[in-house]
């Protein structure tokens, strides 16, 4: 398949896809309005293309992009579930899409009511007291939650608490966020069942006595395993003076089944772009609201949506102990509109059915693969599970190759080489929105690939065969970074 040229290589001088109304105020010389030294000497060298060229170009690009709407996307920890079209329509309503963030509260009562209600829904789902809707994505939620914890400790004159505990299977954002919040990190080992090794936790707590700020956990964790010792873990961390942080990346497993608040967590972040079906947009926008238990409410970012006795909504400034705002304006509002739509559509029984079905689908696939792929933690999983390509590795086929071979069958690769504690990891999250036939097909393809790995490894190693491009030279990209197009230099 041929490659698509860049938009800069298309068009011709003078072409444009835009037409503005004629200027209807008296035109003045620009230099009369702005000192020449501050003006451009020539227009920015943007493309000169017609509308049909723009449309064809980006349509072609879209056709070179795998998506949930085109096929099964079992990318572990990313919850690539179906993104309902209804959500898109609701977010496009002009009464939401065409609002200026600084409009007077009297003109945005509907938006404020939506945010106020969404906050209460998220409180109920997580078992938290209040939720800030500001954070833009999961990692933004993490740093926000850690800043809240830091402010809490400072307020108790315990600023010396500078260690955040992170299990060895955690998402990379956890240690990165802890470090960004100015914390040292200490790693917790997993036990033989895939949960936090409580004995090791005890040792690490003792080793950093008086210094523990928090433990960051996902539950279920990145192995898709629910940590059955969670109550014990929470007790020990709290006894050591630490706070418990819930990474909500895997919350699709627990809606209506269990709540982080009841497990003992003090802070929770949501990934609304995972759990509540808002689209990932090729890498964003997400939305990462943060919920907190009652003792942390004074520290959360403001302003927060409020409702008075007459049902009038407004923005209420945060109190004096608040960490302050973590971004401009109120959050990724149009993502929040989609999440609100999804929660109202499903209702409490629907949300529970979503999580139960996600768990069932994952177990169904796991059990059908465990005889051909090594299952390092052989126990009932939650919404996702991890297998290892250890057996296939004996034939020179790695997790990466299996992922690439799946692409030939119109299936996206699972998350590979993560979590780090499983060698040759393939992390598989089917989600609840897939039919049994899709799962059966995936199982059949995975079994075929295992068979190929043994009998015809080259076909796996050479994959993908049918994609627009083959395997790409990552080393070249990093060694000689080419991060932008430049016009060819003409020698005349």
């Amino acid at each position, binding site marked *: 398949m041929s490659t698509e040229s860049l938009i800069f290589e298309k068009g011709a001088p003078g*072409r444009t896809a*835009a037409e503005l109304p004629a200027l209807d*105020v008296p035109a003045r010389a620009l230099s009369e309005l702005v000192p020449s030294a501050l*003006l451009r000497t020539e*227009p*920015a060298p*943007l*493309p*000169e293309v017609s*509308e049909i060229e*723009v449309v064809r170009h*980006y*349509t072609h690009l879209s056709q070179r992009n*795998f998506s*949930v709407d085109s096929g099964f996307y079992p990318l572990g920890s990313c919850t690539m579930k179906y993104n309902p079209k209804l959500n898109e329509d*609701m977010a496009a309503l002009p*009464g939401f*899409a*065409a609002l200026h963030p600084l409009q*007077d509260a009297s003109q*945005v009562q509907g938006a404020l*009511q939506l945010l106020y209600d969404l906050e209460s829904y998220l409180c*109920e789902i997580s078992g938290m007291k209040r939720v800030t809707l500001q954070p*833009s*994505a999961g*990692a933004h939620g993490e740093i926000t939650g850690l800043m809240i914890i830091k402010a809490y400790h400072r307020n108790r004159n315990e600023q010396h608490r500078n260690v955040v505990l992170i299990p060895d299977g955690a998402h*990379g954002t956890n*240690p*990165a966020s802890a470090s960004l*919040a100015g914390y040292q990190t200490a790693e917790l080992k997993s036990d033989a069942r895939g949960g936090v090794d409580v004995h090791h936790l005890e040792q690490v707590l003792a080793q950093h006595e008086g210094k523990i700020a928090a433990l960051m956990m996902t539950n279920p964790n990145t192995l898709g*395993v629910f940590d059955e010792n969670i109550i014990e873990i929470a007790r020990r961390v709290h006894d050591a003076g630490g706070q418990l942080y819930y990474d909500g990346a895997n919350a699709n497993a627990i809606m209506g*089944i269990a709540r982080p608040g*009841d*497990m003992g967590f003090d802070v929770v972040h949501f990934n609304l772009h995972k759990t509540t079906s808002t*689209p990932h*947009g090729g*890498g964003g*926008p997400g939305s990462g609201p943060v919920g907190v238990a009652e003792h942390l409410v004074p520290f959360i970012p403001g302003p927060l949506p409020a409702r008075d006795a007459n049902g009038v909504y407004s923005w209420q400034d945060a109190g004096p102990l608040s960490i*302050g*705002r973590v971004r401009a*304006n*109120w959050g*990724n509002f*149009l993502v929040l509109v989609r999440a609100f739509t999804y*929660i109202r*559509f499903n209702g409490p029984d629907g949300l529970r059915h979503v999580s139960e079905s996600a768990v069932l689908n994952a177990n169904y696939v796991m059990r059908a693969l465990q005889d051909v792929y090594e299952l390092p933690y052989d126990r*009932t999983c939650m919404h996702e599970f991890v297998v290892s390509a250890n057996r296939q590795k004996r034939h020179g086929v790695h997790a990466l190759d299996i992922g690439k071979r799946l692409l030939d069958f119109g299936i996206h690769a699972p*998350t590979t080489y993560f979590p780090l504690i499983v060698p040759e990891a393939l992390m598989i999250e089917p989600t609840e*929105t*897939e*039919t049994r036939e899709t799962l059966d097909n995936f199982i059949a393809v995975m079994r075929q690939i295992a068979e190929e790995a043994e009998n015809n490894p080259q076909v796996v190693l050479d994959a*993908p065969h049918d994609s*627009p*491009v*083959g395997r*790409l*030279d990552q080393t070249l*990209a990093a060694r000689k*970074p080419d*991060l932008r197009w430049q016009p060819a230099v003409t020698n005349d």
Partner: protein
Amino acid sequence: MTYVPNTATEQHEMLRAVGAEKIEDLLTAIPEQIRLTKLLDLPPALSEPEIRRLMTRLSERNVDLSHAISFLGAGSYDHYVPSVVPHLVKRSEFYTSYTPYQPEVSQGMLQAMYEYQTMICQITGMDVANASLYDGSTGVVEAALLAVGPRDTGEVLVSRALDPQYRATLQTYADVRGFTVREIALEDGATSASALEAALTPETRAVVIQHPNFFGTLEDVHTLEQIIHRSGAIFVLAFSEPVSLAVLAPPGDYGADIVVGEGQTLGSPLGYGGPALGIFASRSQYLRQLPGRLVGKTVDNRGQTGYVLTLQTREQHIRRERATSNICTNQALLALAATVYLATMGKEGFRQVGEQCLQKAHYAQERITALPGFAPLFSRPFFDEFAVTTPVPAAALNAALRQRGIIGGYDLGLDYPEYDNAVLFCVTESRTRADIDELVAALEEIAGETHEH
């Protein structure tokens, strides 16, 4: 209904296939005492038509910009978005994809991001740009973090004319990281060169100047650049109105080291302020310290050109606690919208948008400040926003405008006590002369009424 396709019968068969009788058999790892025994206390499920009715009603409790004439800017700008932009951005191959971790089947998004990075360099005059951050405010934060480094040494100076929300966001991060942020005083609505000179110390790692600044005023960037670079600090140029780059000299030309700003208005709806688009560009010397994702060009094993996420050793999923930033999900879809918007407007269209903003804002400013009781707050040049003092308290003025179907300017007294009774008006290319004349007539009338009382 939910979006779960499998029927109860099918689910029962699937349960049996995994050796379970009921779903609870799969949940035994969750201790009994924390398992919910009743449904969540949420409103009952609604059907699609019911949701549509509910949401339409909620949305109609808002006064949106299609039902009012808006002169509100102050960080968010109402520019026209051609139909072609949402049509292409809403192609579900784009919006239902994940971060392009499998480049062989993600060339569409990767190439679009490469084009985005190029266009950001084209409008800013910088060497490299990343594939987006959350918004303008967190862009300023990332620039400051780059400047102070992982050890948080030194301090960052910010102009008092930097968007108050950006300053507040930076302060939140500075508090937790322990570096100092100090403000540089203003003079006639722009950063004071002498105050900057006096504020710089050997500890100053970066200076953040917004241009056009929060008041729409153009900064004397050439003079400020010389002062900043004499001190050895990093010159961070911030913007909240990207359309200004259509007309104003690109920051690369006057020596900015890092350029950060808000790009939402390039092709995406205002959406009550989010999702937004954080733009981050810099000189090539900072390449390996950049936050966020970068897309690079390379070749595949068939000799074809292709694109990949590159220099990932800076990022959290590889480097974990030593990453340059914790950012993971960014604002890719808005970056795509900006790419399509800039391609659609193109060289000539983008210039025209910028010039129309400039011309219309100046027409409006002249007409408003000719009214009795209204005067320019500052005398410096501006782009598409300007501050005026008003004969009526700003809040009362805006309330009276709302009654006339007009969204007035931003009440500067909310953030700048020293500028009480001053309003910041914004006029983009989306406003017509008739809109402006209507505003002028309304202001005259409101001021007159108040005068009579």
